[in-house]
């Protein structure tokens, strides 16, 4: 698909959609949109080589889980296009970013805006924590730390088949606390898996609060390099920096872009909620109204009319 808009515009569109959704639903994964909007926008709008979506523009309802008897089962990967040899595959490791991904799918024209209205509705495939069958998802990653290993296995298999497409994993920094992430990096290094790339949203936040207070992960870049990846550190809101980083030579190693971000980027109002940012819920009508007005102004959009 041709990218007709700049990734910066896509990123702004993601923030606006997630913000509006959060106000309407009195809560949401808002800080994830702040930190990851540029990364997800850049992946979908520029970096990933993807074909046309293979699933309906308006998402189908939940069609059952995989089972022997469910022949019609589909993952949500069809929104990323067909799984052909030369196309890239995307694995969204922290499925809590699903809302951000759905917003991105709408912004790049892969999913209808109505899709977001189905978010977390009973019987919908547009689930709160992205499931395999949710738009843009190919595997379950609601349990953190699985994504890079899965990507590594898929990349190994695709290389073995001589496929030209790469595997991209979108990760979160909280996952670096999981031992499996480091097992995956060492396995990639040992097997020279270099058709695998990852970008980590280092927003320094996790469910309990600031990562340094919960479990500090230290010098991520040095650790990743020491485990055998090619790690490149960038400003995660600088799309040009992503373009440059993606061209880093990483022969026989996976490329991991360490994207330092702010969980308030574009929505400075959220600073006053620090360090409770994992899921933003408004505690009063007053707060909802205040947030609606402040953030809408910063995003240069009209506030959500019903909550002014």
């Amino acid at each position, binding site marked *: 698909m041709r990218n007709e808009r700049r990734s910066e515009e896509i990123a702004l569109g993601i923030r606006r959609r997630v913000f509006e959704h959060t106000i309407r639903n009195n809560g949401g994964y808002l800080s994830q949109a702040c930190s990851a909007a540029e990364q997800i926008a850049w992946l979908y709008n520029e970096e990933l080589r993807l074909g046309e979506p293979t699933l309906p523009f308006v998402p189908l309802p939940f069609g059952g889980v*995989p089972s022997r008897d469910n022949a019609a089962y589909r993952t949500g990967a069809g929104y990323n296009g067909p799984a052909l040899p030369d196309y890239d595959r995307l694995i969204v490791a922290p499925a809590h970013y699903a809302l951000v991904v759905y917003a991105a799918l709408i912004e790049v024209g892969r999913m209808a805006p109505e899709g977001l209205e189905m978010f977390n509705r009973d019987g919908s495939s547009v689930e709160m924590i992205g499931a*395999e069958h949710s738009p843009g998802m190919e595997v379950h990653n609601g349990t953190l730390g*699985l994504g890079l290993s899965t990507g590594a*296995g898929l*990349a190994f298999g695709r290389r073995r088949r001589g496929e030209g497409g790469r595997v991209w994993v979108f990760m979160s920094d909280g996952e670096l606390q999981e031992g499996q992430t480091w097992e*995956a990096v060492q396995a990639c290094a040992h097997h020279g898996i270099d058709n695998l790339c990852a970008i980590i949203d280092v927003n320094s936040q996790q469910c309990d609060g600031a990562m340094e207070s919960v479990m500090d992960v230290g010098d991520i870049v040095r650790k990743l390099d020491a485990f055998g990846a090619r790690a490149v550190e960038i400003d995660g809101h600088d799309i040009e920096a992503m373009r440059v980083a993606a061209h880093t030579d990483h022969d026989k190693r996976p490329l991991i872009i360490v994207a330092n971000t702010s969980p308030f980027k574009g929505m400075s109002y959220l600073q006053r909620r620090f360090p409770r940012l994992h899921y933003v819920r408004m505690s009063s009508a007053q707060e909802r109204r205040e947030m609606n007005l402040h953030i809408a102004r910063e995003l240069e959009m009209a506030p959500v009319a019903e909550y002014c």
Partner: protein
Amino acid sequence: MVEIVSKPYARAFEAYAVGNPDVLCLSADLTSSCEVDGFRDRHPEQFISLGMAEQNMLSFAGGLGMAGFRPFLHTFGVFLYRRPYDQLIASVAYPRRKVRLMGFLPGITTPGGMTHQAIEDISVMRSIPNMTILETGDATEVESICEAADSIDGPVYCRILRGEVPRLFKTPLRVGEMRLLSQGSDVLIVTSGIATEEAMRAAGALRNAGLSIRHIHLSTIKPFDGTELLDHIAAVRHGVVTLENHVTEGGIGSLVAETMADNACGKRLVRLGLRDTFAHGGSRAYLMRYYGIDGLALVAAAEGLVGRSLGISETDLSEARVDAVHSEAKAEAL
């Protein structure tokens, strides 16, 4: 005299894998212990060493499955589900990847103690949607397990016997088919895995004492169609004894109990296995005796069902097989 086959898995896996290029051999630092070291040396391009990192191995295998490969994971059974349970569920079971989990050292077949003994694996695997469970009970079943496992459209967990394995059966393991080993009418014995060899000895002694024994061997534990089992239960007068190399909760004893209860079958049932206990390290024969999962325990259970002592002693249980701790057929003493 029973034929003893040395390392049937090693030959069987190699023969199967070389003809199936989408089969990959994965190992987690127990390559020789799982008898695939020769395969590694002769077919390095089809072998992936993933080190002592089972969580990664399970998700990595899921990724290989996404690329259309059918990875065979080789390690001790415990390491396929205890540590990497989350990965087993999310990366393998849920998406129905064609991952073949080859679990060595089932139950008390290892002197390695609690950390090495997969005593609740069947119970765990039975409760996982989409999972198939196969268990080998002799050399012929080990020789045919790769083809059987690879025929499954989804993930499959297999209990594999290694080293010196007796040959009890002439025909290969066929998924979904139970083996009828004797057709008596007094007591039904249901066994799987190494419990079958043990039960065959006990069944002989019971027969010599005048009991008519019906004995079935299960190699497909899940999915399980109870119809045939119910016919066998209906064919015996006194009841059913199950004997398994596993805890009595969730294994084949439970499987039989559930089948009976679901079908309002009023016959008596005695379940033998590890009774809500972990085991410790020791020889197989010692552990089977110590935990009451041997031929003598089976005899006692049958006596209980028929309501009389049959006067069977240990010497009546023929051909007791004792394995040496150190054997050429094993990579280490485990």
